[in-house]
């Protein structure tokens, strides 16, 4: 427990006492003039400030897409770095408006005061081990020490894997990300467990020799990392959902940041509706009719975002895998903009 979590919990109690029903989130966001997003404490590729202090990453840009939808400006966002433990109380108390932070969609979380929007990343939990250990799959990990960060679903995964395969894994649990990673690289643990993409990020940016480490899945089960909003504000949930959908649809239609202005004159009625040439979609959500156009114009489509942050255009070089569109054999499913 650290004081931040304690403070948040206390705030939760006070906030819950003070007001039963905050007005719709979108009104308070508009009145404030910017969006407040929960961000990670530095996972390159998903959410981390660059050397100029500008936040970058897939989760960060998902949040920027919502800012574009509401304000037409991707920079009207404030990012609040949160630990794994702090993130959900921060959302519940209204300290942040949206939580896109490699958050796994689980029943217990969903049933406890938050709502999940559309997954922006499908992922398996992975182990990273030193290549020199010769281990390449979970079954060979008997007796290994595993560095685990608290405040994640991975604590449960460690236990599930260990008991299912009788591996007698020895977890070493830390409260913060930096300590967990440092303990792994110093050799305190044989393995580091977390989302495989975060492992790829850690390997690419924090190890001296990225080729000296291998990553493999801890389980065969896939997780959906999904931005979440507070329970009980359906209008806000819709806005977040369709901002993410705009990114997916743009990729499906082949609309990119570069060609979006050419696509505006497209004859395809679906594209016309999508880009707001034919009005109605934005208005229905209480947004600008051209919100999808604005999102693509400022951020590109989902594929571009993926490549830029975690895919082939980034140091992480993560394969699209399950994060391809359904039409390419992945799990990303664009819904109809009409």
């Amino acid at each position, binding site marked *: *427990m650290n004081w931040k979590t304690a403070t948040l919990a206390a705030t939760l109690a006070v906030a819950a006492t003070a007001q039963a029903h905050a007005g719709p989130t979108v009104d308070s966001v508009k009145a404030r003039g910017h969006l407040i997003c929960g961000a990670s404490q530095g996972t390159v590729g998903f959410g981390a400030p660059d050397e100029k202090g500008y936040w970058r990453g897939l989760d960060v840009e998902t949040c920027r897409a919502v800012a574009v939808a509401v304000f037409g400006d991707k920079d009207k966002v404030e990012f609040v770095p949160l630990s794994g433990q702090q993130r959900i109380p921060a959302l519940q108390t209204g300290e942040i408006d949206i939580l896109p932070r490699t958050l796994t969609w689980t029943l217990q979380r969903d049933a406890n005061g938050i709502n999940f929007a559309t997954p922006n990343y499908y992922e398996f939990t992975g182990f990273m081990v030193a290549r020199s250990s010769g281990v390449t799959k979970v079954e060979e990990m008997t007796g290994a020490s595993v560095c685990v960060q608290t405040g994640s679903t991975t604590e449960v995964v*460690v236990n599930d894997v260990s008991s299912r395969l009788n591996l007698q894994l020895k977890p070493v649990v830390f409260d913060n990300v930096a300590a967990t990673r440092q303990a792994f690289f110093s050799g305190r643990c044989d393995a580091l467990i977390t989302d495989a993409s975060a492992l790829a990020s850690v390997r690419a940016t924090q190890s001296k020799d990225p080729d000296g480490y291998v990553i493999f899945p801890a389980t065969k089960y896939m997780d959906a990392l999904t931005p979440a909003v507070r329970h009980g504000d359906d209008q806000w949930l819709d806005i977040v959902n369709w901002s993410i959908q705009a990114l997916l649809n743009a990729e499906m239609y082949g609309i990119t940041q570069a060609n979006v202005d050419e696509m505006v004159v497209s004859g395809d009625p679906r594209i016309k509706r999508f880009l707001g040439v034919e009005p109605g979609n934005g208005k229905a959500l209480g947004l600008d009719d051209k919100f999808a156009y604005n999102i693509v114009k400022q951020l590109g489509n989902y594929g571009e975002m993926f490549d830029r942050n975690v895919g082939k255009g980034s140091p992480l070089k993560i394969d699209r895998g399950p994060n391809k569109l359904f039409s390419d054999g992945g799990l990303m499913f664009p819904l109809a903009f009409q």
Partner: protein
Amino acid sequence: MIAALWDNRRFRNWGGQLLLLGGLAALLIWLVTNTVANLDARGIRVGFDFLSRPANFPISESVLPYDPADTFLWAYITGVGNTVAISILAIALSTALGLIVGLARRSQHPLTSGVASVFVTTVRNMPLIVHLLFWYALATTALPAPREALNPLPGVFLSLRGLYIPALELDANAAAFVGCLLASLALLVAFRRKVVSYFRLEGGGAGLLLLAVSAAFALFWAALFIPATSLSLPEYKGFNFSGGLRLSPEFAALMVGLVIYTSAFIGEIIRGGIDAVPAGQWEAGRAIGLSERHTLTHVIIPQALRIIIPPMTSQYLSTVKNTTLALAVGYPELGLVVGTVINQTGQAIESIALLLGTFLTISLAVSLFMNWYNARVALVEAR
């Protein structure tokens, strides 16, 4: 009538108290019911029923036996067990080290007092978290990997996975045997005066008798139940050592950091207490022919204790609370466990309430004990 009541001093006093108490209770009830109602409106569950669900998360080391299949309640109790264990150990060790530091500070020898004062100045002026991280970084970088573990004695391995030593494994009979032996020794020591006077023993005879009686006890138990023991040796298998007793780097870093940090404060409290006893007491001790050591132990320390104990109580309380910093070095004390419980269940308010209640209980227990001890050593004055 009302004026008469108002003029009644007793009524006014009691009425005021009752009004205040009632108001406080009403405020509390309003806070709780309103919070519950609003949390409910936001779809956040409230209540303690989550405590009976299986925890499913691992705890890396614990004093009490713990398995992830146990309930959240047991995970929480395991955290309490760890916190209590490290608190007691840290308090005992830092008091011992603090006594040495305090006496060294008063030493006539310039080297001894110089070293002690440098120790106190540097240690006391660094935040505890820095101490912990320093010792943890030292443990995890200076020590070799388990494959190249240091092996100073057969069966003893030191690596960055911790210190492994051979363990004596006792079966139930042997454990009972050791337990009875310790209990009988404790009883003998507790009632030594009675034993000595009953058998009319003087001087050295008493100690011998104590030993003889405990030995007889031990033999009796050994004959009654055949104890079986085996030696469990640590051995390197696959990734890690298995078998033997293990001292983890997390525990070691926490203990070393906490003990060193606290001992600097305790040393100063002890030195201050001793210095506060008037110099005349030393002179009086010498005047009746006591040696320096005896003056210290029989004249000065009993008087110094009265000055030492109140600040020592708050130092002990800080130490108990400081154990929560263990999460920085990955030792699963109560705070870390509660943090994990909050994350797994989302029940922040209930878990924080449990955390607060537990620390309040532990701290009050420490206070009560120290107050009792304070009363015991206090000057008994004529009333």
